[in-house]
């Protein structure tokens, strides 16, 4: 019996589902080359490289980027650049912190017994079983109440007043990223044979040296995939950011959402296209890392 035998029904369903997954993305990318400013109708591709481009039936002055008109436009949009900067800053900071403390927690939960262990383990499942919006408004309430109270108590005025911003977004992101890092690293640690560490100690390495020379290199692939997962979660997050951002801390998803409620130009599509390509490269990188980790024993 051929183990890879599949019925035509399964194949047909598979093709359909993949089509369903990709059609919207393809359309989105196509529209980023749309020769229409309103981006309501598809008016065909921008084909000319001249500085005058036919749009919506009439010639307008355009950047000399030709088909990539909207991408050039995008690169000059300060709001987008600021949002991109915020998004990356938050993602980097939150990833580094959540990876460090998440890995520590994974080690603790997998290796040690301590009083608060059941509580620690259980709290990791909160972001999975509770809708994001519930956490979002909870964190919003926490920040607005404590900030209000602190501003009053410390008599803070003007710029000194505590308010929502990049800091609150990053701190909140860490809260929902850490559990994922911990769970991923914990899953890797489950298969980790303790005798490697015992061997290192047996050979004269103390706990600290053992961790950095043996344990850490061995769990590094797990830590990295946890970090990458956390990073993408942060980049992708809308809901928590929506409730915790403030002036000057707009991220890309928030920015795009804002645009969708107003006028939509193909700039949004150009932005989406850039985003999709970036994600594509990131996923490739992850795949490469994983395949390197899972290399077969015989070479």
């Amino acid at each position, binding site marked *: 019996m051929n183990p890879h035998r599949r019925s035509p029904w399964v194949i047909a369903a598979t093709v359909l589902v993949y089509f369903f997954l990709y059609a919207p993305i393809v359309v989105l990318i196509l529209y980023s080359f749309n020769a229409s400013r309103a981006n309501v109708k598809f008016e065909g591709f921008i084909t000319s490289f001249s500085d005058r481009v036919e749009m919506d039936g009439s010639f307008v002055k355009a950047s000399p980027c030709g088909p990539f008109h909207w991408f050039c436009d995008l690169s000059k949009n300060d709001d987008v650049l600021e949002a991109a900067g915020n998004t990356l800053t938050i993602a980097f900071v939150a990833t580094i912190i959540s990876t460090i403390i998440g890995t520590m927690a994974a080690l603790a939960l997998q290796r040690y017994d301590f009083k608060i262990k059941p509580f620690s383990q259980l709290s990791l499942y909160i972001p999975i079983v509770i809708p994001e919006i519930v956490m979002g408004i909870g964190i919003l309430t926490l920040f607005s109440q404590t900030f209000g109270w602190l501003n009053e108590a410390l008599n803070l005025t003007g710029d000194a007043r505590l308010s929502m911003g990049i800091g609150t977004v990053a701190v909140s992101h860490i809260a929902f990223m850490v559990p994922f890092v911990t769970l991923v690293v914990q899953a890797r640690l489950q298969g980790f044979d303790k*005798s490697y560490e015992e*061997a290192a100690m*047996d050979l004269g390495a103390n706990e600290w040296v053992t961790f950095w020379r043996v344990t850490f290199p061995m769990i590094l692939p797990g830590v990295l995939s946890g970090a990458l997962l956390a990073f993408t979660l942060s980049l992708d997050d809308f809901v928590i950011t929506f409730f915790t951002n403030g002036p000057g801390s707009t991220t890309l998803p928030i920015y795009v959402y804002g645009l969708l409620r107003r006028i939509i130009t193909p700039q949004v599509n150009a932005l989406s296209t850039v985003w999709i390509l970036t994600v594509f490269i990131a996923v490739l990188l992850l795949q490469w890392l994983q395949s390197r980790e899972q290399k077969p024993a015989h*070479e």
Partner: protein
Amino acid sequence: MTSEFAVEMRDVVKKFITPEGNELNAVDHVTMQIKNGEFFSMLGSSGCGKTTSLRMIAGFEWPTEGEVYIEGKSTGHTPPFQRKVNTVFQSYALFQHMTVFQNIAFGLEMEGAKESEIKKRVGRALEMVQLTGMERRRPRQLSGGQQQRVAVARALVKTPDVLLLDEPLGALDLKLRKEMQLELKALQQQLGITFIYVTHDQEEALTMSDRIAVMSKGRVQQLATPVEIYERPVNKFVADFIGESNFLEGKIKHISGNEALVHIPVLNAEIRGMPMSNNFVNGEEVSVSIRPEKIRIAEQAAKGEGLFQAKVLTSVYIGSDTHVYADLNGTRLKVMEQNRISRLDPSSFYTKDQVITLVFMPENTLILKKD
């Protein structure tokens, strides 16, 4: 060397809490003295406490009660990296992210040895285990036997006072295991350091060891040389665990010096044998053990002391020997006979229901404490 004993365990208890929440004595009041330069084995089935004892010597576990001494010094809570003993792990525990060279050099690096010194000593260690030229390989590029040698080299390069080996040959196939047994024994004799070897394989223990501790349920059942353990087991457990034995249950009728008479109810007869304990009393319930190869089958039917009529159940020809299973008044006995003479004639083999006479010699009949 400051002490006569390389390792000494004095009344050591190790308690564990089982997942069900019960307290379990994994090691239960174990006392043993392991001499310098000795090849010492701890033998027993899984859960007998042998690995836990080894881990307490290595420093991975601390005794709940009692004390472990290394070279005469109490170890207390000394961490593994401060003990002059090294371990060869059952799974080898070779660092997968390091080369063979880096694996062996690791322990020397921890001592702060100079690079040139490390190079020299790693080279010598590789030579010792015949792996010269494999320095740059990764552990997973090596065969099981080669990995095992790297594990030994990695431990020995530190020149420990005592080498601990936790079932180091368990993962190898039979042929390689036999080879490695001889190699390890040769290595130990050549280096003259103490080996403490944990195994569940009795043949392995008998082949390699100077002395063996047979363990069961966290206790040492017998600690003696291989010959003593096989020929003079102290109780029914040891007699049963090491090699094969036929057991008959009975009551001591009379005891005098190194001979005793035991009444066996199922035979309705007395058997003469050697008491394996000094404190038997008349009327005590005992087990009588006779090894299959030590029962003789008489040429002709005869009657007398130590002679019993039995009926053949089956006879199995296995080349070097013939195993005869016989029924003796309802008790099944196994008898082994060597095939000393080449023959093909079917009538020269035992057949089912054939009546044979078994000969029990008093010097081969061991009288054991019931456990």
